[in-house]
């Protein structure tokens, strides 16, 4: 039985077309994966179903949910539908919950809005919903506040709110993008189980083909406001036909061509590094210190590409800051090109390493032009203005941009272009070592493939050494020679990438690899 039918949906926001003739169908008990890159209209389709749209949005077409025409309903009728017939799970569990309300009250509130039989009854049903979301009140009392829970647990609260009234349709918009791999696997299997048990339709929106492939019955691939291809999930293995979806699949598993790392001399030596953060001052004195990095040792050889994998909070970013000489270490030593790294080290040593950050939108001062942004590292190794100009132009061309882009402001560039500019900034002082801190994690898959190609090419041409920090095993597999796995401040496993990823020794590495979603490898793939 068809639960949701979207028929030739067009939508424009303030005159700009966002959706152009989207048609989708979803049956009860079915999981529909909607895949697309940023700006493809996948989230807008979901918001159109709930009619939670900006004021300037205009829709035409038909959206039928459980026999009702959503476009014809007035606001009070829509409010009655939302929550009752449609539940929604958002991407960011940190902001989807009210920090001042206990989790039990938040779930109970959704229930009381639609079916008020008193607070006691609502709390009883909230407990039931939380239990179904695998957050049983016996172990996680409903009097807890969101900040007392981890990211994955918060997402379970959000799911409990969405399913409390047993809606017919659950929309999950990138429900696991903000979560770690192992948590992601748990949340995905929870969603699948709930959809199956309740006979609920699940619309799973994601940019990640692998996430959708493991869960969906049918998939729809969107590009620029249109569904370019849809069908059973076996399309992924038995052959996609539309050129865009084929390109998307290829990009998801892209392996840049690169030479193996040659065995140069050791360029960075990290020995028994310990980094403590002092505990919070409280009325009863100081809380015990938090050890973020705990006895880490490793070497990077010139020309090598070393991966550092771990989940959030494992200490990778702290280690990065210590290697960059931005923060002191409590014990151990870091030597770069034979000289000690510490916060007061000389500029010539600093000029030898640069960093590329994760967020292409947060990495640049919005009030500076590109020429000044890229030239900033020259502060370390001053050169004449015309030389600097020439080198900036050279760096921009090396990353596939034009020298004429120097005069533009950063907001004129897309996310992928910005990440290229970040790489240009890292290249401009001709460093030996570049730290890539989740450098491709925020990019769309097709852009990510291009940036990976660029990084591989630069390393071959310029003999660069990379320390590639990431939570994403697919990316690490594509770009590194050796990989280290970090857990709770310690390196638990090190070895050649292929070996570690195919025959992991440490139980944590095994858990990570088992949890990572993978694309099915069919005959055609």
């Amino acid at each position: 039985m068809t639960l949701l039918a979207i028929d030739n949906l067009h939508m424009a926001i303030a005159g700009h077309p966002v959706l152009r003739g989207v048609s989708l169908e979803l049956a009860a008990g079915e999981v529909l994966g909607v895949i697309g890159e940023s700006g493809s209209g996948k989230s807008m389709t979901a918001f159109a179903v709930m009619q939670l749209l900006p004021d300037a949005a205009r829709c035409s077409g038909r959206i039928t949910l459980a026999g009702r025409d959503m476009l014809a309903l007035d606001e009070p009728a829509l409010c009655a539908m939302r929550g009752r017939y449609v539940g929604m799970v958002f991407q960011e569990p940190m902001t989807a919950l009210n920090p001042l309300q206990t989790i039990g009250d938040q779930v109970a509130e959704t229930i009381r809005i639609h079916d008020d039989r008193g607070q006691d009854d609502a709390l009883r049903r909230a407990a039931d919903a939380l239990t179904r979301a695998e957050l049983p009140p016996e172990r996680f009392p409903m009097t807890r506040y969101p900040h007392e829970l981890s990211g994955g647990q918060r997402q379970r609260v959000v799911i409990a709110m969405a399913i409390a009234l047993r809606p017919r349709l659950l929309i999950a918009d990138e429900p696991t993008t903000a979560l770690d791999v192992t948590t992601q696997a748990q949340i995905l299997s929870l969603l699948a189980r709930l959809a199956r048990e309740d006979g609920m339709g699940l619309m799973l929106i994601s940019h990640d083909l692998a996430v959708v492939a493991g869960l969906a019955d049918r998939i729809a691939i969107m590009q620029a406001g249109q569904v370019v291809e849809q069908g059973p999930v076996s399309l992924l293995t038995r052959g996609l036909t539309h050129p865009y979806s084929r390109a998307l699949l290829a990009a998801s598993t892209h392996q840049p061509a690169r030479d193996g790392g040659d065995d140069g001399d050791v360029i960075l030596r990290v020995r028994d590094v310990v980094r403590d953060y002092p505990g919070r001052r409280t009325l009863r004195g100081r809380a015990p210190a938090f050890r973020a990095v705990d006895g880490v040792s490793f070497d990077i050889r010139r020309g090598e590409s070393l991966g550092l994998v771990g989940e959030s909070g494992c200490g990778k970013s702290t280690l990065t800051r210590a290697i960059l000489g931005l923060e002191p270490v409590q014990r151990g030593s870091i030597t770069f090109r034979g000289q000690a790294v510490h916060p007061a080290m000389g500029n010539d040593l600093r000029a030898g390493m640069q960093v590329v950050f994760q967020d292409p939108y947060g990495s640049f001062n919005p009030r500076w032009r590109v020429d000044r942004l890229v030239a900033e590292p020259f502060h370390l190794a001053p050169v004449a203005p015309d030389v600097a100009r020439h080198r900036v132009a050279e760096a921009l061309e090396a990353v596939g941009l034009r020298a004429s882009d120097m005069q533009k402001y950063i907001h004129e560039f897309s996310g992928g272009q910005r990440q290229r500019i970040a790489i240009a900034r890292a290249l401009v002082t001709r460093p030996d070592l570049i730290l890539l801190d989740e450098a491709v994690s925020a990019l769309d898959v097709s852009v990510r493939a291009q940036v990976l190609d660029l990084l591989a090419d630069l390393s071959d041409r310029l003999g660069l050494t990379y320390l590639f920090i990431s939570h994403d095993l697919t990316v690490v597999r594509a770009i590194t020679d050796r990989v280290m796995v970090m857990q709770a401040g310690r390196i638990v496993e090190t070895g050649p990438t292929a070996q570690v990823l195919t025959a992991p020794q440490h139980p944590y590495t095994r858990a990570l690899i088992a949890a990572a979603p993978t694309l099915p490898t069919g005959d055609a793939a």
Partner: protein
Amino acid sequence: MIAFRLGLFLVLVVLGAAAVSLVWVPQDVGAMAIANKLKPPTLAHPMGTDHFGRDVLSMIMVGARTSIAVALVAVGIGMGVGVPLGLAAAANRGGWLDEIIMRGNDLVFAFPSLVIAILITATFGPSAVNAILAIGIFNIPVFARVTRGAALSLWTRDWVMAARVAGKGRVRISVEHILPNVANLLIVQGTIQFSLGILAEAGLSYVGLGAQPPTPSWGRMLAESQTMISFAPHLAIFPGLAILFTVLGLNLLGDGLRDALDPRLRRSR
């Protein structure tokens, strides 16, 4: 947007009046014409004349100069001292310098500003300069707090981290990266402090501690009109309206600038 335009219009009228008064006024404010005293508004004197027969319109135009000069310099003092203090506090967040600056701020904030201004002018003698100093000192913690608050969130950005990786020190990052990004907030706060400065100057002059005669001042015009309010109400009404419209205009302008310069508010519309 309409509020912003109205605010801009009002502020431009006041600035224009002050500027015109530098070269021309309807009647010299130093000249007395007792025969013509306490005339209600006529064509020759659109806002009437005072108890010395001086043209009220001319006095308001010249008085605008005093108000603007006092408020502008006071805002300048507040920004000139407060912004560097706020930047320094944010650059050393959590350190002893931050602590000293912010506790010093709290100390200044703890006193009622107008009472201290009265104390300062009463101690050092009433004059426009002392009024400026007194108002300016109380602008310092306002700007220091606004600057620190905005700068704190900027210090966690990746581009500040990139500047640190490029070996730049705290002072340099504060000046090159942080200051330009808090500037729009400071402009908005500046317009609001400017209007508060005009009010404070009028208040000080009203109690006789601001600009001294014969320099015309809106606050003193109000004070002098008090005894004559029953038979010459225009003497109180026009300086009062001048203060009202200037402060209103500056506040509308400040609000409008805040909306125009804050990308978060812009997007939500």
